[in-house]
């Protein structure tokens, strides 16, 4: 498993251009974010200009990775070794982060102009920049301390963004989120301290060599796992998620659901594969919880009356799919083929969900903005007036349902194949039931919207491009199912 995370020695030194590309990836988002606060922009063009160099840097890194393979960096700063590495998975997640981040950033000006929030809104830009930088750092960090720093930064930026809307409900939910994310960080930090005290190592690669199974590894894994699960809103630690999304701004919700919780999950899988190689209890526990998550999240979304609650609860259920895969990724005695399939399916599902959920939050935000109502009943008759927003919602939900030809389907296919090969029939059943539950709550939205007998309301026109950005994200998730070999070819470990 370790090699899959690129914790190996690199063959080639990074080129000088690669250094710059990496630096640009990590620093430019913060820099542009500060500029955004300075000028308090509400126009699309400057945002697009700011996104461009960051996306270019990401593209450069991709090219460098394809030529040189795994890349590593190490610095000594004040006696502490900071190490970064760029492997296939890292670059893939980095690109997803950058593109989803760019989409959210491009969506924001229109949203700000239409909702016209107070002066606080200018601080959205630096927070967004910090968030993107911190996420990028998480995908490439290769030691526990850097990971901690990035995780903390990401969590605080996320809390800040959620608090920005300033409504009382947002403040309550945001403060609860802050508290929980601090508790999560604390648990994580305790785990790090334990590891450092016992093995004297923070670098993941060295750690992987020296760690041996025993109570220390278990306790450390449990502490870190609990902290990260709390941050990733894994069932049953998901209670904070829905209220937070209920009152957040649309682009913030999109970024949060698409990327922030995924980052914690990423760290969780990586650390457990180092600390708990070949154990069955912990992954099995996560898998059982994942099955409950699929059912619970689906049922809550099904019963939801508000559109945002529906979309947020669906995240809980979708994370359940990923949790169910844990035994195949981390468990003992898994044959190479099912493990490889599960590995590919896991990340494809994660990426597909990231794109689709971002699109779905934007589509839902557009619907709420245009109709002025946040309840499902408020959607009645909207199919005639807002067909495009509904179509985007539909395309995104195809991915969530896991119907072909979306990324969700191909991912589910890979996971099902791995599960059938290893005879995990309960997990198979959970995935299939999840499909039906997802369809149940998604089509509730459409049932309301197709109602032709509803009274006509006045609809607020949307800013141009708000639908278009969401459509691009939804189509990306949709088309990724057929083009799955492109991202998956990056995942074949760190070795070229």
């Amino acid at each position, binding site marked *: 498993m370790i090699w899959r995370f690129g914790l190996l020695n690199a063959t080639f030194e990074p080129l000088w251009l690669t250094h710059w590309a990496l630096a640009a990836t990590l620093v430019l988002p913060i820099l542009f974010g500060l500029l955004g606060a300075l000028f308090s922009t509400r126009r699309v063009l400057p945002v697009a200009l700011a996104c461009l160099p960051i996306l270019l840097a990401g593209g450069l890194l991709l090219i460098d990775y394809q030529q040189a393979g795994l890349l590593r960096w190490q610095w000594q700063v004040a006696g502490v070794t900071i190490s970064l590495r760029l492997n296939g998975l890292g670059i893939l997640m980095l690109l997803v982060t950058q593109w989803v981040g760019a989409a959210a950033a491009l969506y924001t000006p229109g949203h700000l102009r239409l909702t016209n929030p107070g002066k606080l809104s200018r601080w959205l830009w630096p927070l967004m920049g910090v968030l993107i930088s911190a996420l990028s750092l998480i995908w490439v960090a290769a030691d526990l301390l850097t990971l901690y720093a990035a995780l903390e930064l990401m969590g605080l930026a996320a809390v800040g963004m959620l608090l920005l809307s300033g409504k009382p409900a947002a403040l309550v939910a945001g403060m609860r989120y802050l508290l929980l994310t601090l508790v999560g960080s604390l648990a994580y930090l305790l785990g790090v301290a334990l590891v450092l005290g016992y093995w004297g190592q923070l670098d993941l690669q060295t750690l992987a060599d020296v760690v041996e199974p025993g109570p220390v590894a278990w306790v450390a894994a449990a502490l870190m796992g609990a902290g990260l699960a709390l941050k990733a809103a894994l069932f049953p630690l998901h209670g904070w998620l829905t209220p937070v999304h209920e009152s957040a701004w649309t682009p913030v919700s999109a970024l949060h659901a698409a990327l922030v919780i995924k980052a914690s999950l990423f760290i969780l899988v990586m650390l457990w594969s180092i600390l708990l190689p070949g154990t069955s209890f912990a992954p099995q526990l996560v898998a059982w919880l994942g099955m409950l998550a699929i059912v619970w999240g689906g049922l809550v979304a099904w019963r939801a009356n508000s559109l945002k609650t529906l979309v947020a609860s669906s995240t809980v259920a979708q994370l359940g799919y990923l949790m169910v895969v844990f035994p195949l990724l981390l468990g003992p005695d898994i044959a190479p083929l099912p493990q490889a399939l599960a590995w590919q399916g896991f990340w494809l599902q994660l990426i597909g969900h990231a794109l689709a959920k971002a699109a779905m939050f934007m589509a839902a935000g557009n619907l709420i903005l245009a109709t002025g109502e946040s309840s499902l009943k408020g959607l009645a008759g909207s199919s005639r007036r807002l067909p495009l927003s509904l179509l985007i919602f539909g395309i995104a939900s195809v991915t969530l349902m896991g*119907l072909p030809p979306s990324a969700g*389907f191909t991912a589910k296919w890979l996971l*099902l194949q791995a599960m*059938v090969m290893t005879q995990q029939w309960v997990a198979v059943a959970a995935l299939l039931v999840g499909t*039906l539950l997802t*369809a149940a709550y998604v*089509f509730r939205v459409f049932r309301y919207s*197709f109602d032709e*007998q509803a009274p006509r309301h006045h609809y607020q026109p949307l800013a141009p491009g708000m639908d278009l950005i969401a459509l691009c994200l939804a189509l990306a998730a949709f088309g990724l199912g057929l083009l799955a070999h492109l991202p998956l070819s990056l995942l074949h470990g760190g070795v070229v």
Partner: protein
Amino acid sequence: MNAAWLPLTTLATSLLAAVAIFILPEEARRLRTSINLVAAVSKIILVTLMIGRVSEGYQDTFSFQIIGGIDFVLRADALGVMFAGLSSLLWLCTTIYAIGYLEGAANRKRFFGFFSLCVASTLGIALAGNLFTFLIFYEMLTLSTYPLVVHSGTAKALAAGRVYLRYTLTAGVVLLLGVVMLYSLTGDHSFASERGLAHYLNDHRGLLTLIFALLVGGLAVKAAMVPLHGWLPRAMVAPAPVSALLHAVAVVKAGAFGILRIIYDLYGIELSVELGVTTALAIAASITIIYGSVRAIAQQELKPRLAYSTISQVSYVVLGVSLFGPFGTIGALAHLLHQGLMKVTLFFCAGNYAEELGIHRIDEMNGAGKRMPLTSLAFTVGAFGMIGLPPIAGFITKWYLGIGAIQGGMYWVVAVLVASSTLNAMYFLPIVHRLWFRPGPAHGQGEWPKEQCLGRLETHGWLLWPAVFTALISLGAGLLAGLPFSPLDWAARVAVGEYLP
């Protein structure tokens, strides 16, 4: 020489039409109509080209890799182009009909967009070269049909849509499980492969049977086999062109076609017989045939009666497949086309009666033959075909099915056929009798429920000509069955390919 562009372009015609329609504004009626018609006609041309290529012995294949070991494959083989031909021909007819039917109605952009997607899915189903590709288009069909079923937006339509989704999505999940299990056992298995799955028989007999049950169980929902048929009569709330498409080529036929593919191109007939699944299928099909007909008699409204008739008629295809022998196969394949042509005619006519005269119930149809002679003639042709009277296409299939049953030694199937034909006559002949021989409003007795004079002819031309056209083709398919490229001839070609490698 492999013309990979051919299947791809054919698929693209409907897909691009759908995209273009979605981009156009709601008001662009003329442009939308032109796009629809140009796409439908060019698709017919492309499918004709494809049929020509197949008859010359080529199998044009387009494929690319999706993930390791699994490819997306479109292949034009004899069975596939047969279904593609039906789909493209009926797309043109139903599109013309729908343009007339929905004149002035709301949400036409949504309707035609999803209509095109629906047809694109059926073409994908026809040309799918392996089970994975088939599954992709099969699920696409489910999704693209939902907006059509709930099109009117009434509470009844929305409830029907919910039932439709419950049935089809659950079936899709069952099918997915079957496909995944099959892939885990055998890997990617092309429909073009000659080997079948026979070499897995010794070690995995139980598993193969289980997978077969999952696959066919999943497909049987769309094919509306009893007891999985509940969605079909409810889906009748959809507009008439949708019902026509659903019953003639899209959803119901997709299920039947899938069963054909599974038995002929995946398992192979010998293996299916060896596993004993064909007998089970024959019994299920027979039950469906009789049950559908009996329920049809009980219906007082025209469209539900046609719906139950579909349930009964589509299982003829399944019945023919499960008879071991070339004649049963020919009957099944020919019926796939014949039933589509006749049923689409009947639904067009039912829509015409409803639009022009407001007729929904059968007892309102007295004397409609005088008021709408061409529509009623077309209806009569379709009804006689369904009963199986010569020289209409339906006779041919029943004849071949009967021969197939006798050759296969399954004499009880002949009894089922006779019983079914009798029942068909019992529910179609009274309608025909009412149309022509009972005096009604046209003779000065009573009034039509809601008469509209939609055109210079008996009704709007866009509504009338498709019905007449498909009726003529149903007649022609029976009369000229001996000519090359007739449905029967093509079915025989496919059957020969299956039995004589």
